[in-house]
């Protein structure tokens, strides 16, 4: 199992998770995650060779239905909770013409 998590990793993970953490949060969450990961590392004791992973508790797979058109909510309803809108669109800060991070 990999070792504990350092500040640089915390900042990297926060970026991946799109969480803007304060310096105090980075320090606190880093320490807490290290403690939790230390506990979780006990999974390493388990011999799991040849054990299939379980992503879902029941053997249900490939559930299909016919693609039938049906009623859905109207654009106004879909936009009703939008923080900013320009009907029938959601409005967001400019994405193009900008270096992606």
């Amino acid at each position, binding site marked *: 199992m990999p070792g504990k998590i350092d500040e640089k990793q915390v900042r990297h993970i926060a970026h991946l998770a799109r969480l803007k953490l304060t310096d105090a949060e980075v320090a606190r969450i880093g320490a807490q995650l290290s403690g939790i990961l230390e506990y979780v590392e006990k*999974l390493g004791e388990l011999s799991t060779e040849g054990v299939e*992973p379980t992503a879902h508790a029941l053997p*249900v797979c490939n559930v299909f239905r016919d693609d039938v058109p049906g009623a859905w909510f109207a654009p106004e309803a879909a936009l009703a909770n939008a923080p900013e809108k320009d009907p029938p669109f959601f409005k967001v800060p400019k994405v193009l013409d900008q270096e992606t991070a």
Partner: protein
Amino acid sequence: MNASAAGQVSEALARIRRLDPHLRCVLTALEEDASARAAALDAAPPTPRGPLFGVPVAVKDNICTSSGATTCGSKILADFRAPYAAHVIERLHEAGAVVVAKTNLDEFAMGSSTENSGFFPTRNPWDVERVPGGSSGGSIVAVAARLVPYALGSETGGSIRQPASFCGVCGLKPTYGRVSRYGLVAFASSLDQVGPVAVDVPGVVRLLGAIAGRDERDSTSVGEPVPDYEGMLAESPGRIRIGYAREYFGEGLHPETRKATEAAIEVYRKLGADVREISLPHSAYTIACYYIVCTAEASSNLARFDGVRYGHRTKEPADYIDMYSATRDEGFGPEVKRRIMLGTYALSSGYYDAYYLKALKARTLIKSDFLEAFKACDVIVSPTTPTPAFRFGEKADNPLEMYLADIYNCAANLAGIPAMSIPCGFTESGLPIGLQLMAPHFAEGRLLQIAHAYQKATEHHLRKPPICAE
């Protein structure tokens, strides 16, 4: 029942107004909508009346309702009004029930005390200095304090059973897939399940009968026929085989909890049950496995809260990345951030195999333990929680210790099996103690029969918190 819907609903709303200021289990009381629905029910022709005609129900605020806000206990959704109602809400309405309140929870159902609510903590009606448990603390307290006869909670890892144990009521987590998750705001999709809360087993049965069944809109809800649970409850349970899992009686178990649980097993012996020791050898890995699986899924599910389509958005972001990350920083509380961080880490490049894949394999072993154990018993009994309700702040600074409050609960979620908590006694200081019963997939009917047999022989579930008399 002859009572009018309006009468039942106005009484529930009056109880909420009187007692909730002391308990804070309600986020939104749906006064107007509930009264209007009750009046419409009374005015409709009386044929045929639904099985829950006019019955007031409280609903955890991570279940979408078409009236009132659905906040998930989070500032990021403080003003969110769902554009559709959850499947379980549609089913309650069809049965004639009236949703009177949306209840408090740990933010996004992440927590074991309601202290993580983005708004305020809920108090335990047996001792307002103590937590009610969580995350479905609000729904559980609404039933425990007799504000409403029934409530819906949700579980990802013990979030119905653990607070039910702390507050002396009955709560069931059905088999994964027994109840549609459509309209339940997702936390960890392979574990989440809606479940019923009531003071006794017949109440749980009535509510389960109303909400169980296949729903096209949740592809993980299963087509397995829904048995006649009420009919099964009326039948004799026959020979009961109880499994006693020694791993659930180890270190850290409060002496009074141990005593009450062992006394409950004795009650089953006196009823003629065959009690045998079984083993769940991978129990020690449950919490480690659970916290990797649930946080990994949460990090993915909660990516949708980005300030674009609904919920809070930060003011004047520098660019669109800043809009996402500042919005999420402002909107999410500390536990949600912690879990998103842990889950993102477990799924990130270089750590996926060591954490996430390893946890999925551990999940297979944990599930296999149960399949093996159920060859020898109908239900496995244990304490629901290692201790009675703890005090506010007692575990708030130590996330791992808080996670361990669910140590006996999470295995049922990982295995996907039904499990419930029923009251089985009280500490000397008057705090409730819960008995956990776990059964094989889709054996809710049998599980409820066996729980009912206990309640017919005992009276713990009839005891009300003193605050109800005020």
